């Protein structure tokens, strides 16, 4: 059993030359005055390119909020978010939108797919929105890896939860985005399907150098990652490299979760 490497909370992260995404002094406040909730109270974090990172923390600690801000889905109340050389916090809504479809991939916990489109159409949708055609060889490779060949003409309601998540992953990978964000992608799945989905994310990082950031509650899921970032009360509460289910569980206990 390896000793977890903990960093001191509040200390700025070591500058990462090849950071795909990073945040500096990121804050997000809901409401104002007495009832203000500081979902993010000054977060400094960086995610290296070609790395699989898990974000963990107690419920309400700000994981989803952090991910939304990093992905340009939500606006921050303060601080900066950088995607490579682009500062997201300076972009207008339209610029953010076009950036999302070209450079960011998403996998959500539920409601990932448009019910009126079949699997193939769902997968190519972001590229279609960007007015691009998917590279057929790459499309075939992704489909083959995710085992979706037989399912391409099916509509979402004809797919199992695991299959739906695999379609979502295919969609996220197809455009070869700078980073793929996944918010509890296995939250609705049984352990076998969950393991399958995590294995696929893992292999996309290993084999194609895809950057993946995943929010999860599950220490086993987190153990698939290269690194675990811990959040508590809207602040960074430490991180683990090369996590296992046990080290993650220990670290979470340390946070009182």
């Amino acid at each position: 059993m390896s000793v977890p490497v903990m960093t001191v909370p509040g200390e700025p992260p070591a500058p990462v030359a090849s950071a795909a995404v990073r945040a500096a002094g990121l804050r997000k406040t809901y409401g104002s005055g007495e009832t203000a909730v500081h979902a993010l109270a000054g977060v400094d974090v960086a995610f290296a390119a070609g790395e699989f990172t898990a974000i963990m923390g107690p419920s309400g600690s700000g994981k989803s909020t952090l991910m939304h801000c990093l992905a340009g889905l939500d606006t921050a109340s303060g601080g900066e978010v950088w995607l490579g050389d682009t500062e997201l916090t300076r972009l207008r809504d339209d610029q953010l939108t076009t950036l999302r479809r070209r450079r960011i991939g998403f996998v959500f916990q539920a409601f990932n797919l448009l019910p009126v489109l079949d699997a193939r159409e769902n997968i190519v949708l972001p590229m279609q929105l960007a007015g691009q055609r998917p590279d057929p060889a790459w499309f075939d490779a992704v489909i083959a890896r995710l085992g979706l060949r037989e399912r391409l003409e099916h509509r979402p309601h004809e797919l199992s939860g695991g299959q739906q998540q695999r379609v979502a992953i295919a969609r996220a990978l197809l455009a070869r985005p700078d980073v793929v964000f996944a918010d509890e992608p296995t939250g609705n799945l049984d352990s076998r399907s969950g393991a399958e989905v995590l294995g696929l994310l893992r292999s996309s990082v290993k084999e194609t150098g895809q950057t993946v950031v995943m929010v999860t509650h599950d220490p086993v899921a987190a153990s698939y990652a290269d690194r675990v970032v811990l959040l508590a009360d809207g602040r960074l509460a430490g991180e683990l490299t090369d996590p296992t289910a046990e080290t993650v569980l220990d670290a979470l206990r340390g946070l009182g979760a």
Partner: protein
Amino acid sequence: MRTVLLAQLRTHAARLIASTLAVVIAVGFVVATLVLNETSRSTVLNAVGARYVDTAAVVSSSGEPLTGDVDAVESLPSVGAVAAAWETSVQADVPGRTGSQYLAVETVADAPELRWQQLSDGRLPERTGELAVSERARAEVGDVLTISTYDAEGEVTEAQATVTGIVRLEGDPEAGLYGRAFVTEQQVRDWGATDLYELRIAAAPGSSDAQVLADVAAAVTGPDVVVRSGVEQAEHEAAMLTGDSTALTSVLLVFGTVAVVVAGLVIANTFAVLLAQRTRELALLRCVGATAKQVRRSVLGEALATGFVSSAVGVAAGIGLAGLISTLVGSDSAIPLAGLTVPAYTVLAGLLVGTLVTVLAALAPARAATRVAPLAALRPVDPAPLRSRPGLLRLVLGLLMAVPGTALLVLGVVVQSVYVGLPGGVLSFLGIVLLAQRAVPPVVAAAGGLVARIGGVPARLAAGNATRNPRRTAATATALLIGVTLTSAFVVGAASTRATATAGLDAEFPTDVVVQGFSDDLPASLPATLGDVDQVVRTAPVLAADVTGPDGEPVYVHGVDAGTAGAAMRSTDKVLLPGPGQVVVPEWAAEYYSVRDGDPFPLTADGRSLDLVAQVTGENQPLMVDAADLRTLAPEPGLAEVWVMLDDADPDAQVAAVDRVTDVVAEADETARVTGIVTMRDEINEVLDILLLVVTGLLAVAVVIALIGVGNTLALSVVERRQENGLLRALGLTRGQLRGLLAWEAVLVAGVASVLGVVVGGAYGLAGAASVLGEVGDIVLDVPWLQVAAIVVVATLAGLLASVLPARRAARTAPVAAIAAA
């Protein structure tokens, strides 16, 4: 469940506002129709039946005079007063105006309750030597008129009479025809009234009108005598004037039925969308233990509450709307919508129709709601679109209604009966609405392929959205389809009605102005003189002479030149003009001489003779031969009439032209009588225009309902697609593209609905006009292409407009919020 119901009503107030609005407008529509119907009915009645509506009974005779019956009626205990309607006519000289004019003279009742005349100035006459005149006479209070009366021998008697008042004949289509005078009973008789054909009777205090009617009917009997209640008589007169009142009633009947059907369809539609949108909520209720029955009751309870409250608002709105239309139309028109007539039944009907239709319309959706499996609440994505039993049932039901309905409609056109055509139309329309659910999606898909090619990704997505959720598309499209179908049905129907009516009026009143001599001795130069009068286009002389008929007895024959006379008439449909060698014989004369069409008909005069061929006509015409033939028989025939055709101009200019003709004629021949038929035609035209205006106004309401339906459905589907739209935004759809997506969808659906609606509606309009007007006369069908094209454009743009607010709302949704709502 009551707590759930109340909570539903509270939390979904916003959604209910939309459906409430639909009910309010639909009920308002029905009530406004009924109220305007009543108002126009009472206005027409008041206008042409003013003298009758407030009387208890009216006795009229078409044969024996009633002179001897007055005392008998007056002595009945239930009778309060009797007005004997003596009538005559005189020639009058108005100071400051050249020549004399024809005045129809009527009696002013002694009893105040039987005086119906409305004065714009002065008072009614009280003694002989006084008279009140209509505005057409162009005299003023205080003028002293010289009145000439002629006895049977043509001997003239002159008298003076002072104008005491000016009578307003507002709304009477005959008011512009000639001047009218109102004098005391004694005066009418002094001026030559000899026979009495009408008695108007008021009830004695304490007696009911029904009592009077019964007593009078018992007291006055005779083969040609008719006793009617005042209202009946007024309706009878109105019918006589407008030619046939059933046409009017039919139009309004069609309209009322249509209003109710539309209301039901729109409400059903709204509820279906409303409940479809709450599927998950209802399923959750089932999950936590509500029985299917409880869910159904909760839904129906909601419908009942919504229906009643919004019906009440709708009734008020409808009466308000009718009031507004009445004021707008009422100000300056020949038959004004005077005030508002709101019988209690209109209010009750509004409440009942609104509540009942809402509950009935909610029945099917409520049943569907109870079929929702509790599991639906837990399903993460939308269930598969329905293409099972209900769809098939709808198809079968739709065909079962559309096919026989269309057959009935066609039958209605063939036999020209609105009572056959109307149920056929309603049935087939309901069938088409059901079938539209099936037919619209494929058409939208085809149009979507086209749109996707020009509109980029949002258009492609919109086409996909519109075709991949056929139920939603069909529901949205049907609302507009209904509105557009009705609009175009009425536009096309109205155009045909208008064309038919114009043709009918031209045939009924072919000449603009007729100048008649007292005997056949008009100056021979008159046609030429009149031809020089401003605005007179053409004149045609009508000659006359006494000749000897086939039976050897003298007979009075008119002579015209068919070419000249035909050119001076608006239409020769109902007038038979003789060619050389022919004689036009009316039926009564044919019977008298025992001749049939094509039989020889010899005429002789002073030893000259002509062998003519009889042309028998059903119209009421005098015996008529070719002018040249008449000259052969009687070398110096008299000039009996001059037919005058005027320029097409506005009604005021034509009245002025008739006045000029009157003046010129009076200078040439004092005793001649000028009848300005053109003014009567104008007045009737104006009445038709107002009717069409009223119908069009009501129709605008139907279109507004349809548009609210479109906006409603789109707004609901935006709520429904919150997650979808959020996901699209997350995946890179810009706000503008999202708005574009909804706009394209609206244009696609609205465009398809309006094109289909115009085609179907046009067919209904033609069929409706054919079956309604068939009862009245010859039909002239007319399709106003420009207006029809405008409907398509306006409806499509309106659909686009209806998408603006929902689209803005959809675009405002932050992508995160949409995802979080999962």
